[in-house]
């Protein structure tokens, strides 16, 4: 733990913001106000934040169908995101994309993605761009990250992307968030491996890391090493597998009958990254309960504001359907 107070505060705020964002959506979705398919990131916050806290806007990420956490962690505006999920014309994507297609190119966030496994090749493209741009004054490259799940790791595109990155020595990082389920199927069934997902990445000749994805500090420290490696010109890509948990269903409405007896309670009790963070920083007296409670309250406020704004934000008009297909046509 080499983080100062400010950094710890920021990390906690980010995790908490994601948590509240998702918990609130979980409730709001039941009212029927929000349309479409929504996949919540609750439980995995330490991964998104532990990874993205290291990044600058020059670094790019490509996300998944479960993208809210990555978006927030990479700096997307919480109000713009909420409005997008509500389908407002003022949403980050003008109500065209919704939950599964949030992006903010200026922030280096190249899009959530509804096609499982589609992100990895795009991230390699962005990494090739980083490589062309070359190192900065400190001799370090900007990098690009593909987030993938334990389901996405079986899609052909993910393998092709890893090989292309390895062959071209693109500064790409493949972050595998193994939350042990792809929809309703366990990783024990769907992922054929000699050992784990990271070992499959390793077979492409890249360096790999593994860490507990419910421990922010484990993620953060691991990513420091990974980034140090990948930012160094000539090293090429790397992969990391984080062992993590999702607290809600695959999508909202999932009856989750595939869970074991008491599984969710156990996860919430022993594998909650936010609880763990709290215990760790208060135990080490780095932040006080009071500090953290203030952040909690702020996060709740921020989400409440976002929801209120989203509710009254302007709706798209039918003619907007034709906007932005092309720049010129």
């Amino acid at each position, binding site marked *: 733990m080499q983080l100062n107070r400010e950094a710890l505060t920021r990390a906690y705020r980010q995790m908490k913001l994601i948590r509240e964002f998702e918990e609130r959506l979980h409730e709001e979705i039941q009212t029927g106000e929000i*349309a479409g398919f929504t996949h919540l990131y609750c439980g995995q916050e330490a991964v998104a934040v532990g990874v993205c806290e290291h990044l600058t806007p020059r670094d790019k990420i490509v996300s998944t169908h479960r993208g809210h956490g990555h978006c927030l962690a990479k700096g997307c505006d919480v109000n713009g995101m909420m409005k997008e999920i509500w389908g407002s014309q003022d949403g980050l994507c003008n109500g*065209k994309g919704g939950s599964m297609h949030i992006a903010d190119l200026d922030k280096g966030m190249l899009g959530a993605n*509804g096609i499982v496994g589609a992100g990895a090749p795009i991230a390699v493209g962005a990494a090739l761009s980083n490589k062309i741009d070359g190192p900065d004054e400190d001799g370090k490259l900007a990098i690009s990250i593909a987030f993938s799940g334990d389901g996405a790791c079986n899609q052909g595109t993910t393998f092709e992307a890893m090989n292309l990155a390895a062959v071209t020595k693109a500064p790409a990082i493949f972050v595998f968030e193994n939350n042990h*389920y792809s929809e*309703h199927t366990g990783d024990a069934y769907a992922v054929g491996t000699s050992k784990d997902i990271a070992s499959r990445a390793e077979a492409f000749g890249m360096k790999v890391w593994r860490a507990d994805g419910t421990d922010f500090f484990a993620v953060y420290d691991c990513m420091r090493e990974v980034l140090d490696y990948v930012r160094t010109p000539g090293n090429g890509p790397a992969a990391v597998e984080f062992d993590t948990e999702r607290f809600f269903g695959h999508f909202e409405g999932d009856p989750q009958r595939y*869970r074991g007896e008491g599984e969710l309670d156990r996860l919430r009790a022993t594998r909650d990254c936010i609880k763990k963070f709290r215990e760790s920083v208060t135990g080490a007296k780095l932040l006080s309960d009071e500090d953290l409670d203030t952040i909690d309250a702020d996060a709740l406020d921020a989400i409440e504001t976002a929801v209120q704004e989203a509710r009254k934000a302007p709706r798209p008009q*039918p003619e907007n*359907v*034709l906007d932005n297909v092309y720049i010129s046509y």
Partner: protein
Amino acid sequence: MAKMMYRDAIRNTIFQEMQRDERVVVLGEDVVGGMGTAGGPEAIGGIWSTSTGLYDAFGPERVIDTPISESAIMGAAGGLALAGKRPVAEIMFADFIGVCMDQLWNQIAKFRYMFGGKSICPAVIRMPAGAGYNAAAQHSQMISQFVTNMPGIKVVMPATPADACGLLRQAIRDDDPVVFLEHKFLYAMSGEVPDDPDFCIPFGHARLARAGEDVTIVASGMMVGYAETAADDLAQNGIGCDVIDLRTTSPLDEEAILDSVEVTGRLVIVDEAPPRCSLATDISALVANKAFASLKAPIEMVTAPHTPVPFARELEGAYLPSPVKVAAAVRKTLEYR
């Protein structure tokens, strides 16, 4: 006859065909649901509830849950079919044809031709398709234009529970590869389904959903309902429409379309896909070539715009055809002289 939902008609038909013919095999992502979990197989039973209970009844050899690997699913369906089985593969959303088209278009569709007629490939590829759930650009698409273009593939688009049953049974028993485009928005549609365990609807025979002499409306899948609603409204104003439900777009019942246009002289085509190189243009071109002399007015097409499918409710509503748009097109074609 039994009243049931479109999705149950599909599940029951697969069930019955698996009972009848042990070569019938099901595969796809989460078709079992729960593999490798504490809840175990069938904890969920398929996200569309179109495969519930199959695993329990027929076991893991014939009900194969797969990783997220659509190319492997499609390719395995091809391999199973070449090897003598009758696979029914599910591609969870038709939009995912993007990651597995080769195995359909260059492999399954072409085996028989490339091999000089010396193989059969009786694979059924079920692809839930279409919009209506605000699922946005990558989970809402109609892909009839792509698959109808593919020589070697038959394409089915059932519009009712009864058709879902009769056409799926035909598809499973058919020796050619079939793409079966279930409309996701119709899954909860209820209707009477014949009990006859051999109830099949032959391919290439359209269904006359409404009869009228003023305008011909051609539709398929979810668009049939829109056309029927429009036709019913128009009937109230004394305008009679033939509503032709294509049922299969390949083979196409050209005769049904041409015969109707010969009477009405006016044609409206309803198609959920974007307009360019679409099924709508396909039907239009057929008529502009083969029933030109009968045509009294320009052929109207009610389609999605040349845009991806948008997310917001208002936008998806504006994107999709609707009974109102269909009725407007009918009136437009009638106003032409």
